[in-house]
């Protein structure tokens, strides 16, 4: 997938001018937030579960190598095959090899952000393997030739009318006069079209929400049941997951599941929680003949032991973006790569480099709402600030910002000088602004005054006024203190 994160500002401008997108983003603002709040409030131990969830993942990350080995052994013991992929390129190659060996022409896919991360669909198409997305949202954006704009609601930027138009454009074998008014009709049509694909598919590819070290199982949570059909019907099931998806036991999974759906959609549980362990065993009524797991690193192990390690606790619930004012304003595509919102602002620089993704951790007001809802208690603003520190130390931020900051710091570190200069400046500015009480334009303040007025200072600094009144004040105050 083409990276447009360096053009974040232009992307954002474009998104702000996109009226249908802005309408669609309104739903994010209203829908997810209330649902999560209600679900969290209904569970008295919710915050305690968040602590547990954090501790479980912290423990795993401290011993990741051991848990990965244990997990891989269990997968092999259950008859599956584990493939280690250091880079996205490695992962794509491994998956293509499996496709080639099985002579696969069509693969069905459950929803997986990791396959977005490694750009799997485009790669498979280049090599004459047709990937078919089976999650409704993913299916829609595949038809549109787009990428997800949200990690759990990939087509949240698309309106119903647009979906209707896409279905009419692509499903040409159906009656052009059919009625597609109701969202449920659209869903029914997608179901019917996809049903055939499940049976044609040679391979089913899914992601994983959890990999369980104790049992060698992979677990997906979905609401549509498409993931189950994807992994059960074809002869081969390939799980693609990044290494930090490991948890020690099924008990741990159940702890984290209790915060996952509540944080994501406000559900107590997702509709389907599906556990797969190896291929079909003798006596199993169904299941794949082959079971592969592709374990992707792609920059994650390099985050271990750094100030960004906590980010590896992320369970991709999407709560941070659902609550982010910047995401609400510009949507997911503006972020310019796979992961949007606050989690993307931290993760993307780790995965594609802060030189390309530098805008993302900067485009935050540090309002802290993401951290306050993150079920894994990831200190997202703090880590965005760490990225800013890296940028600052590498001189990656714009020169004007750097010089402005240096000039400001020069004065801020010299209180006496600072007070002398500000007294004069604010006195002058106060006089100029006094007539209207505000400025609608000021040189060097264009960033501010483009969209709003700048309130004029009252004139004279507090320090100057206080110094004047000090003598009398200190007398009366000390008189009172000794009284």
């Amino acid at each position: 997938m083409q990276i447009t994160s360096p053009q974040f500002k232009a992307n954002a401008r474009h998104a702000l001018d996109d009226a249908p997108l802005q309408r669609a983003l309104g739903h994010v603002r209203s829908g997810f937030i209330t649902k999560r709040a209600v679900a969290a409030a209904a569970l008295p131990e919710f915050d305690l579960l968040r602590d547990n969830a954090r501790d479980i993942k912290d423990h795993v990350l401290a011993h990741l190598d051991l848990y990965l080995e244990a997990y891989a052994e269990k997968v092999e013991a259950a008859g599956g095959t584990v493939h280690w992929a250091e880079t996205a390129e490695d992962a794509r190659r491994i998956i293509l090899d499996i496709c080639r060996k099985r002579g696969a022409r069509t693969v069905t896919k459950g929803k997986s952000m990791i396959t977005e991360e490694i750009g799997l669909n485009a790669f498979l198409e280049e090599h004459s393997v047709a990937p078919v997305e089976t999650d409704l949202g993913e299916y829609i954006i595949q038809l549109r030739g787009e990428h997800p704009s949200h990690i759990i609601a990939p087509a949240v930027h698309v309106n119903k009318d647009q979906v209707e138009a896409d279905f009419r454009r692509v499903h040409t074998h159906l009656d052009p006069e059919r009625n597609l008014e109701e969202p449920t009709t659209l869903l029914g049509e997608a179901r019917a079209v996809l049903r055939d694909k499940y049976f044609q598919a040679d391979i089913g590819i899914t992601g994983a929400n959890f990999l369980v070290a104790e049992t060698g199982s992979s677990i997906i949570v979905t609401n549509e049941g498409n993931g189950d059909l994807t992994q059960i019907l074809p002869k081969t099931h390939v799980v693609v997951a990044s290494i930090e998806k490991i948890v020690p036991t099924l008990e741990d999974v159940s702890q984290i599941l209790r915060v996952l759906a509540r944080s994501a959609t406000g559900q107590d549980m997702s509709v389907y929680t599906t556990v797969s362990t190896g291929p079909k065993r003798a006596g199993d009524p169904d299941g794949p003949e082959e079971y592969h797991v592709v374990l992707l690193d792609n920059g994650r192990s390099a985050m271990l032991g750094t100030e960004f390690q906590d980010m590896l606790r992320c369970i991709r619930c999407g709560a941070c973006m659902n609550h982010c004012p910047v995401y609400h304003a510009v949507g997911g595509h503006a972020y310019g790569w796979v992961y949007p919102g606050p989690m993307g602002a931290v993760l993307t620089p780790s995965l594609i480099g802060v030189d390309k993704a530098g805008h993302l951790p900067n485009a935050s007001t540090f309002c802290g709402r993401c951290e306050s809802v993150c079920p894994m208690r990831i200190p997202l603003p703090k880590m965005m600030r760490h990225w800013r520190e890296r940028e600052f130390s590498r001189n990656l931020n714009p020169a004007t910002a750097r010089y402005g900051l240096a000039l400001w710091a020069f004065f801020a570190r010299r209180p006496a000088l600072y007070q002398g200069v500000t007294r004069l400046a604010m006195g002058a500015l106060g006089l100029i602004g006094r007539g209207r009480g505000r400025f609608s334009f000021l040189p060097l303040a264009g960033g501010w005054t483009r969209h709003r007025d700048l309130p004029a200072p009252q004139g004279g600094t507090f320090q100057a006024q206080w110094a004047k009144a000090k003598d009398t004040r200190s007398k009366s105050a000390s008189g009172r203190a000794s009284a």
Partner: protein
Amino acid sequence: MTATAQTGAQPNETAQAPKTAPRVGLFVTCLVDLFRPSVGFAAVKLMEDAGCLVEVPAAQTCCGQPAFNSGDRKDARAIAVQTIRAFEGYDYVVAPSGSCAGMLKKHYEELFDDDAPARERAAAFSAKVFELVSFLTDVLGVTGVDASFTGSVTYHDSCSGLRELGISRQPRKLLASVEGLELKEMRDPDVCCGFGGTFCVKYPDISNKIVEEKTKTIRESGAGLLLAGDLGCLMNMAGKLKREGSAIEVRHVAEVLAGMTDQPAIGEKRQG
């Protein structure tokens, strides 16, 4: 204004405020110092009314947040050292801003990760820091103020005050004691106004979109006056409301609590 004439605040009997007048160092904050000194005087009045001895150390400038949030730890640290030194010897350090108080209270320690003694000094300093309204209610036990304001107000929860310092019911409680004041809550008062320090000038278009959503909810509240505890947010929202031609006035919450609303509201011209 004299310090002894006003005895309006009603300290709660059960609060564990020290018997002798607590010595408070006022951290003015750079925006109040430069743009709205009247907020500083309102803060002084509120604390003196509650029985504090308030001083304003001269060797203060800014809390260092612009440097800290721009990734410039070195300058942030130097400013922190300077601030900690300036406020040595006070029982409390109080700022009329959740954002600056949050910086002083929650972030100074991490600036000295590699220097244990300095870190300890920072921790001791941070323990004394409070945001103004939280200080009045949570520390001094003030339950009401002696002020009146005729009209309806709406209150915006600034992000740092709310999420770093847990300030939400305290200002509402004190506002409820202001005679004649009616609080009309806006929808989602806890949603960011889009200021974000340097964010608003680095990403003006996004900031504008966020503040537009905010002013919409402010207007829908039907209140005639917008209050908050952070001058940065207030200047952002006032600047937008004025650009939109709104008649809603904007003030720092301390001005109303101190009964000091004689100065023109933020962004308004002087009468006459």
